[in-house]
């Protein structure tokens, strides 16, 4: 199994979720994160003083799935999250050795 972690623009969340469910992914976990990268935050003026918002709000989407789905999933995410503008984000894939569904005790493939 693999964990796919995608850092995306917040307003693309719904699209990404839909594209994942189209390829059969049933569950995902989402976290609000702050991103620092090539895309720069903006400078505001508050009462005449500079106010640098140097982080950008991003969403981290995490989904664990069978190895066989990884390619399709990264593609689906890539497509759904793409705007072509800087800051679109990244997808990382890393290994998962075990999975358990707490409710039933099912493991691995069955747990996803």
């Amino acid at each position, binding site marked *: 199994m693999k964990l796919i972690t995608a850092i995306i623009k917040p307003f693309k969340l719904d699209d990404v979720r839909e594209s994942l469910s189209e390829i059969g992914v049933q569950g995902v976990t989402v976290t609000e994160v702050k991103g620092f990268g090539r895309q720069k935050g903006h400078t505001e*003026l*508050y*009462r*005449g003083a500079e*106010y640098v918002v140097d982080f950008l709000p991003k969403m981290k989407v995490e989904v664990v799935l069978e190895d066989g789905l990884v390619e399709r999933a990264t593609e689906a995410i890539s497509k759904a999250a793409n705007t072509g503008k800087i800051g679109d984000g990244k997808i990382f894939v890393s290994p998962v050795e075990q999975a358990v569904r707490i409710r039933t005790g099912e493991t691995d493939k069955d747990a996803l």
Partner: protein
Amino acid sequence: MNEVIELAYALDTFYFLISGALVMWMAAGFAMLESGLVRAKNTAEILTKNVALYSIASIMYLLCGYQIMYGGGSGFIPNFGMLIGADNTVASVVDGDAYYSVMSDFFFQVVFVATAMSIVSGAVAERMKLWSFLIFAVVMTGFIYPVQGFWKWGGGFLDAAGFQDFAGSGVVHMTGAAAALAGVILLGARKGKYGANGEVKAIPGSNMPLATLGTFILWLGWFGFNGGSQLVITNVLDANAVAAIFVNTNTAAAGGVVAALLTARAMFGKADLTMALNGGIAGLVAITAEPLMPAPLLATFIGAVGGVLVVFSIVTLDKLKIDDPVGAISAHGTVGIWGLIAVIFSNDAASIGGQLLGIISIFLWVFISAFIVWSILKATLGIRVSEEEEYEGLDVGECGLEAYPEFTRTQ
């Protein structure tokens, strides 16, 4: 005929009490304005300060402030007295010796001193020790404020010198600002406010609706502040005067808002809400020295100049590294001075010399005496919280609770 006199006495007293209640409400205004303009982690502390300072002012002014201010004396030195005298008898009222209840006068006065003290709390926010602040409040409301109040309104030398300050641009607002300035200088800026290379960094306030609510509360309360300062309403001319004051107070504030908004738009490219709010307050402060005489259009202009001034003053103070989180020194001090000078546009009794004398006398007295008190506090209890407490927020450090425990997560 006596019924009529008694009735007039009743109406003037009632008018005074309602005016005072409106000014009391300004305490809530300052509390909301200040808590909206500080960071979440210092919110409960500033609220505590505001509730406590109002209470301390109420008690200290009762104990001795009122008698110092209105107990007589001459020149620079007021008499020293305590508490409030007996109220008027029916006989003295009927004889024409009194227009309103002494108690109502006290009430109207006590809420003024609380206003002056409220101004201080905003400027020293986010870093001053709570208890040192409250001790300062004891001295300020029981002594520093009443002494200069005596100079003008108690019949002291400024009154004799023809200094004009109808409702207190100087006696109340600049006084608060001067005491705040002394405190801020001794206290230093908030950590992180000025960068290593002298650049000014923004520390955004946490709750704009509160700041806006506070401004509206102040605006409403100011009708009592200025309107009540006519002191009497029970004849055509006084009634007209009070009505004119209401109109001028309102339109000066409006002028301040519009001018500050346009100034901010021009300078920063954005409609900075906080500047608009400060502009409204500036308009109110500006008209306070003379809310009666100007025609409404002139009042609008006086307020508008206040609104422009406050923006420049805030930016300038920041450049001087005088860190005032809520803009109180600018809105009440800089603009208070403008208001006192603007009196000469409409009030023939005022002279530029008299006004400057008042400005300088009051400023020096309050600034120096406050500086001494803050210094003593600094040398003894300390006036600034530890760096760690400042980082973690004064709420947990001083009050043991958070203002918004469920909304913010990392301090």
